[in-house]
């Protein structure tokens, strides 16, 4: 085979334009295949990293997935809250190491506002169990103080000391403003690559305070309570959206889950983030399969193009093959020569596709993170990607047997004198 390789390469170089284009087609299809695989895995990793260290998410009984999406990813709407008393009882349970109460509902220019306690900055973990870090400033301590996620600060250009007001409700334009009670930015978190980056964090009491003179989603007409006076009211929250729970021992997680489900005072549920996430992936499995099928079809189209080009070139190369035969090439050499060519183009296409995918990840990662909060990582191809690459190579080699076989037949029939 070694004596054929230089010949195959020179012959391929001689037809570099048509082969180059098919190589590009194979490379692009491989880029698509690997890119989709990368996106899929990074999306999964991103979701999993957003809740690392949280053993249970507790909220009003309902859909586990909805609770997780809302409490952790700040997507969708909370259907129901749980009472503050339940949250306190949970925190006092002997198996519980820490709790982070979470209240959602308000927003600032499209970014969700999260009411919580200082436990958030102490216990919340992301990524590989990393704690939150401050890029500037400190946690909130006073009432009308806000801590911004990295993306909020960067996109909206806030710095420590700036003042901002919150809007009532989630969503886009046309929301009522809590304009009478502005907040000052006291801290900005370091980037995490999770929904934390897109959140504004305030104290639960502050959330209570801005809603003192509100009822049913609108300011109570005629009632205005200025910021200086809010401290005269009881600012203990009445309810929260969810509670993130860390246990002293992970072994207690199922017992705790049952304990929450059997809670007497109100219907609650405790969700294991990993389990809820796998429900989500099951839901998305069909879409993933469709994407995979589309990229697999693209690869098949690329390889079919390759075979077509190599086959089409055969007729023009009959004389070349006859000359090779006359100078000692055996029919099986001819077979190898053609199969080698297809295989080499597939290999080059796969490698170029891998390089293209890596270049795309490098080039687009900042934009994807900014737009979609999805962290794309440049990594050596892992198990699934290697498997996909292996399949592409195998398919390419198998497909290349076809022109090899045809050339073999031709060279047997033609001998040294091609009948053209």
């Amino acid at each position, binding site marked *: 085979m070694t004596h054929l390789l230089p010949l195959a390469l020179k012959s391929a170089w001689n037809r570099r334009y048509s082969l180059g284009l098919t190589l590009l087609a194979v490379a692009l299809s491989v880029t698509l295949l690997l890119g989709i695989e990368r996106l899929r895995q990074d999306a999964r990793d991103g979701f999993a990293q957003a809740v690392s260290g949280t053993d249970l998410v507790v909220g009003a009984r309902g859909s586990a997935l909805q609770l997780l999406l809302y409490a952790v990813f700040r997507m969708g709407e909370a259907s129901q809250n749980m009472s503050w008393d339940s949250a306190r009882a949970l925190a006092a349970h002997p198996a519980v190491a820490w709790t982070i109460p979470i209240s959602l509902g308000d927003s600032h220019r499209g970014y969700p506002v999260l009411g919580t306690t200082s436990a958030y900055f102490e216990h919340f973990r992301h990524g590989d169990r990393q704690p939150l870090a401050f890029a500037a400033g400190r946690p909130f301590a006073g009432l009308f103080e806000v801590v911004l996620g990295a993306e909020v600060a960067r996109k909206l250009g806030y710095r420590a000391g700036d003042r901002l007001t919150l809007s009532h409700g989630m969503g886009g334009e046309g929301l009522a403003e809590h304009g009478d009670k502005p907040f000052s930015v006291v801290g900005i978190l370091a980037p995490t690559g999770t929904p934390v980056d897109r959140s504004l964090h305030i104290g639960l009491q502050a959330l209570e305070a801005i809603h003192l003179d509100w009822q049913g989603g609108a300011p109570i007409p005629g009632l205005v309570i200025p910021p200086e006076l809010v401290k005269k009211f009881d600012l203990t929250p009445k309810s929260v959206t969810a509670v993130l729970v860390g246990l002293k021992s992970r072994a207690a997680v199922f017992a705790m889950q049952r304990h929450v489900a059997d809670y007497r005072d109100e219907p609650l549920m405790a969700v294991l983030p990993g389990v809820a996430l796998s429900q989500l992936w099951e839901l998305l499995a069909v879409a993933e399969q469709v994407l995979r099928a589309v990229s697999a079809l693209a690869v098949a189209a690329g390889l079919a193009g390759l075979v077509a080009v190599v086959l089409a070139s055969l007729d023009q190369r009959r004389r070349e093959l006859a*000359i090779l035969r*006359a*100078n*000692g090439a055996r029919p*099986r050499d001819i077979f190898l020569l053609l199969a080698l060519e297809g295989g080499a183009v597939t290999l080059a296409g796969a490698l170029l596709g891998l390089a293209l995918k890596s270049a795309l990840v490098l080039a687009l990662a900042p934009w994807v993170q900014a737009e979609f909060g999805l962290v794309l990582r440049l990594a050596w191809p892992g198990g699934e990607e290697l498997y996909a690459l292996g399949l592409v190579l195998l398919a390419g080699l198998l497909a290349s047997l076809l022109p090899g076989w045809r050339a073999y037949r031709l060279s047997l029939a033609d001998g*040294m*004198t091609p009948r053209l």
Partner: protein
Amino acid sequence: MTTAPLLLLEDLEFRWPGQAEACLDIPRLRLETGEQVFLHGASGSGKSTLLNLVAGVLAPMRGRVEVLGRRLGALSSADRDRFRVDHVGLIFQQFNLIPYLSVLDNVLLPCRFSRRRRERAGDARAAAATLLRHLDLAEALWRRPATQLSVGQQQRVAAARALIGRPELLIADEPTSALDAARQEAFLELLRRECAESGAALLFVSHDHRLEQGFPRRLAMAELNRAAAEAA
């Protein structure tokens, strides 16, 4: 072994599949080592078929083809391929060269496939250089792609390729028909001189009687091939 003829055909018959009549029927043909033979054959006289039989690409229905005492019919097709490149150099009418290889790489082609030719050539590149020089191909051409050469130059490159590694038999099938008369003569002279120098027998096949001057032995398909004689 020294008594074995270079080429021996006996009682040879070949029919193309699906045809009732034999296209080749040769009672006997014998070539000695180093012998130079002119074989006259009009187109359709079966000479291409004969060459394919001698080269072992086609197998006869009957009779035997022996080259250097080896009966080709007894060899497997892969062994016949190897035997051919080991012992036979071939030159065709035209388009002898691989377009994407340089002149030098074209000449070295048999050495790529045949260890015997490679070993007999010694330093293959030096041998190729010597042959190219003998065949009046300037060194400036050696690195060029074969397609940039004139037809006459290409045929001389093909001759160098057929001669490299000193095969015992050189078969030339109308190698001069694409050349003009003056060049035909010069090419023939070079070819015969180089064959004599390397000790190769030359089986020169052409329809053109003018080229037979200087060949000590002249044959004609019409006499050799009973099938052609009957058809005529």
